[in-house]
């Protein structure tokens, strides 16, 4: 690998982590904003001396909403924590579905902005594999981000996983209209991503509406 390639890869990976953190902090701030307004509303109601059955029922509704926001935040924290620890080692045994699920949770906001639905269609009995989950997340994110950019609103992207001929298969399937003008002006570093794929001994097969990643299956003995 050349110095230029290393530099480009480092830049793209830092950009990827930055995007994940930006999405995470945005989402967290939204949860905190709801909690703060809900607590403020309870405060206002008490100060105004609101009481009785209707007020009690509203208090309960607000506290449930606060609990719900805390649960959502906790879920997101769990995903970010797991995502971060995947970078602890270069190689590890991991479940591909779990790695993709956390990636989808962390980038859901970007899809929602364009009213694009991210859906999963995972093979349930995926074996644990041995490899670099961070690099796979990075690759899938990069192609997903590009796909989100090129799709019109109200589209759908399905992430499908499976196994075939001793390989792990990850498919990004799109269901929606392409925005041609945006697609043409994008400067997408295919060469860098292809080199990463090669490093992972994987390959990508782009077809109309489907990008298929194939990685050789190295089943973990853990």
């Amino acid at each position, binding site marked *: 690998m050349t110095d230029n390639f290393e530099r480009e890869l480092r830049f793209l990976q830092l950009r990827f982590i930055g995007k994940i953190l*930006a999405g995470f*902090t*945005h989402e967290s*701030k*939204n949860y*905190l*904003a*709801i*909690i*703060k*307004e*809900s607590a*403020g*509303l309870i405060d*206002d109601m008490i100060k*105004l001396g609101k009481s009785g059955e209707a007020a009690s029922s509203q208090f309960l509704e*607000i506290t449930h*909403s606060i609990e719900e*926001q805390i649960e959502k935040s906790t879920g997101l924290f769990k995903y970010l924590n797991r995502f971060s620890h995947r970078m602890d080692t270069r190689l590890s045994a991991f479940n591909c579905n779990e790695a993709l699920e956390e990636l989808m949770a962390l980038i859901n906001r970007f899809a*929602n*902005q*364009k*009213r694009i639905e991210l859906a999963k269609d995972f093979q349930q009995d995926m074996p644990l594999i041995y490899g670099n989950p961070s690099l796979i997340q990075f690759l899938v994110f990069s192609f997903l981000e590009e796909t989100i950019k090129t799709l019109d*609103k*109200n589209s759908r992207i399905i992430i499908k996983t499976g196994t075939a001929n001793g390989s792990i298969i990850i498919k990004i399937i799109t269901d929606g209209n392409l925005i041609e003008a945006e697609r043409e002006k994008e400067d997408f570093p295919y060469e860098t991503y292809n080199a990463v794929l090669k490093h992972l001994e994987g390959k990508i097969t782009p077809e109309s509406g489907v990008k298929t990643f194939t990685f050789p299956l190295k089943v973990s003995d853990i």
Partner: protein
Amino acid sequence: MSHTKVLLVDDEVEFASALAERLQMRDYDVKTASNGLEAMALFHGSPPDIVILDLRIPGMDGLEILKNIKIFDPTIEVLILTGHGDVESVAEGMKNGAFEYIMKPIDIGELTSKIDMAMKKRTGSRA
């Protein structure tokens, strides 16, 4: 009594409804919209004095809504509501005539103070 007419545009429905109720308790006349189309329909049905606008609402560019508001009536003041540190979009909003911006989670006192200042400006512009 304030009775300033406020349109709050945010896709976080629980946030918008709690904030709307708190503003109503402070005598603001508040309507909420969770997307661009709903916002524009409410806006044209009964033009507000002040719009509190999340620029990143799904399905429609918040900046476009801001531009449409300013074309319809430049004296209607817009406060940008943002949950993230996207300085560029806030700067773009300010460039397109927004009165101020406020970060989430908000401080109700800071928000009402900005609404009142925006209303003062609107009243002055119309005098």
